[in-house]
């Protein structure tokens, strides 16, 4: 079944035995393809033309450099921290952080793009702090593509990850609900496996802080930790202060490092767009890339046409609201947590996502691109509604 009038082609694997394939993926480390009665994994492949992939890869490199430059501009400016929603608890650790080499503020990140039916690419957001979907992109996607004889461009994810972690050298990897939360646990286990290092996995909820020293449930001292723990939650969690103190005093090093929260804030897109409109900071080539790939984004709803509002630290589609051309609320996310109660919102012009027609109905395609160790290297496909929320499904993305 193909998608007419679109650059994307959908190949659904309808005749294959799903249970067997789910079991195979389970073995490979993708243990949440089926969750209770939900099918999280859509067995099929969305194929994009090689030209589109190459443009996407180039756009990702450009945007990565542009956002890197924007972070360097915002760094140590408290008025801008405030306006892009950085919780004050993080300011001190950001101020004392030295900027790393260009392109290496976060070594593990993922862009989310809207690619329209005609191939127009627009950046929706960057997840530079704690992206997931790594197992889907680095393990499941190459396997599904390989089985169908379609080329996957995700092969370099593992080596890039190993290169990144050989520099960062975490001694511990953590997520909330390790052992019971299948997706997050599976993600950190895959990262640890691919790094080739000897790293212990722990549950964030077992961590405790003793006068600035972070220890795990067995009182082992942690000095370098990769954590799938969104840093803005330090402003909410009881132990946030203690963890911030541990980071500021250098007793623990966190990965991604604190500066990645500046990349993570969706307010940074408003900074980039603002500087673009003001004609500052960016050179001609960068301005071209911004005009092509970044959507007009502001910290106030000042659009004359349709737009989207979302929390600067929204996750899982939570807090996303879409407004029509008259500025009236059209649709809002119901599944995720609305973090706009805690953090300010950004307003972004709406972008079109390609529609794919599956045997179970139509859905919108969200295209993820991992940037690991500074290099764009992995596609992640997700199919969902107008808002790609917690109930969206994973589908492999291949290139022809």
């Amino acid at each position, binding site marked *: 079944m193909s998608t007419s009038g679109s650059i994307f082609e959908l190949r659904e694997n309808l005749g294959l035995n799903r249970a067997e394939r789910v079991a195979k993926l389970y073995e490979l480390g993708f243990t949440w393809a089926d969750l209770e009665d939900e099918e999280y994994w859509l067995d099929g492949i969305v194929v994009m033309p090689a030209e589109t992939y190459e443009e996407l890869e180039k756009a990702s490199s450009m945007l990565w450099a542009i956002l890197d430059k924007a972070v360097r501009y915002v760094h140590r400016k408290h008025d801008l921290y405030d306006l892009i929603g950085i919780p004050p608890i993080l300011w001190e650790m950001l101020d004392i952080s030295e900027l790393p080499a260009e392109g290496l503020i976060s070594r593990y990140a993922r862009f989310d793009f809207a690619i329209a039916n005609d191939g127009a690419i627009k950046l929706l957001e960057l997840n530079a702090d704690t992206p997931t979907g790594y197992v889907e992109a680095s393990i499941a996607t190459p396997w599904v593509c390989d089985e169908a004889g379609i080329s996957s461009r995700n092969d370099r994810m593992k080596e890039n990850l190993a290169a990144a972690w050989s520099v960062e050298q975490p001694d511990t990897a953590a997520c909330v609900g390790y052992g019971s939360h299948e997706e997050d646990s599976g993600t950190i286990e895959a990262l640890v496996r691919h790094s080739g290092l000897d790293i212990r996995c722990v549950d964030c*909820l077992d961590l405790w802080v003793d006068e600035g020293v972070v220890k795990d449930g067995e009182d082992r001292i942690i000095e370098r930790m990769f954590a799938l723990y969104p840093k803005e939650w330090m402003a909410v969690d009881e132990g946030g*202060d203690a963890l911030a103190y541990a980071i500021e005093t250098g007793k623990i090093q966190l990965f991604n490092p604190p500066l990645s929260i500046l990349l993570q804030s969706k307010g940074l897109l*408003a900074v980039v767009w603002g500087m673009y409109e*003001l004609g500052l900071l960016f050179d001609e080539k960068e301005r071209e890339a911004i005009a092509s790939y970044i959507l007009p984004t*502001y910290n106030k709803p000042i659009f004359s046409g349709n737009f989207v509002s979302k929390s600067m630290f929204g996750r899982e589609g939570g807090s996303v609201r879409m407004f029509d051309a008259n500025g009236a609320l059209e649709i809002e996310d119901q599944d995720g947590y609305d973090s706009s109660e805690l953090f300010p919102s950004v307003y972004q012009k709406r972008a079109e996502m390609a529609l794919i027609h599956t045997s179970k109905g139509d859905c919108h395609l969200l295209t993820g691109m991992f940037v690991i160790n500074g290099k764009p290297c992995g596609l*992640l496909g997700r199919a969902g509604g107008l808002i790609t929320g917690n109930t969206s499904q994973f589908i492999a993305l291949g290139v022809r």
Partner: protein
Amino acid sequence: MAKEENTKDQVVSKLFTPEGKPIRVLSTSLGIALLANALLIPGSPAAASGSSASGEPQLVSWSTDEVKAYFDKNVDWNIPYPEETAEEVEQTGQGAVTSNGTTVINNYGGYNSGFGWDDLLLYHMLFNSGSFYSSRGWYNNHPGYYGGTRTVYKPRTYSSTKFQNKPVAGSVVKPRTSTSSTGSITRRGTSSKAGGIGGTSSKLGGSKSSSGSKSSSSKSSFGG
């Protein structure tokens, strides 16, 4: 200097659309902040130097005629440092600030009343030692009585367990702010028990929960 002004002009001309309307981003607070940062911070993309070459005091362009008549560039308009107080400073009743070679003389819009908000602040800093307002402190020197009695009025006492108007370290009371009914709280802990990291936030999402209470609890997010 000429080159710098040129840069500044270029920035200014970019702030308007060809139709003469300010560009859109300038109607947002972030846009204003970005522009302010660019113009005011030395070494930033659009920074323009504001000082004159000679370093001589100069009147700002909006000075009134009285100020212009009074102004003598040979007078030292700098506020004297404490160690130099041995010499008497002429009392003019007017304040002057010199920065970057530009002198601003404050004569309160010509009314010469000589009392403004900055004086009030100065008094506050002198008499209250810079601390925040305390109603109890006032009644220490200004006794009051309940109407028709000789009972000395005792102001209500506050403690950090009841109310505070600014974040206080170690307090459990959250100050209310105009934007938040719960307010923010500044605590500085150096230790935390297990569950302190991720315990509260994971419950907010519902999906990132160790207890697996929600049906889709094992799949969250894409974390980002």
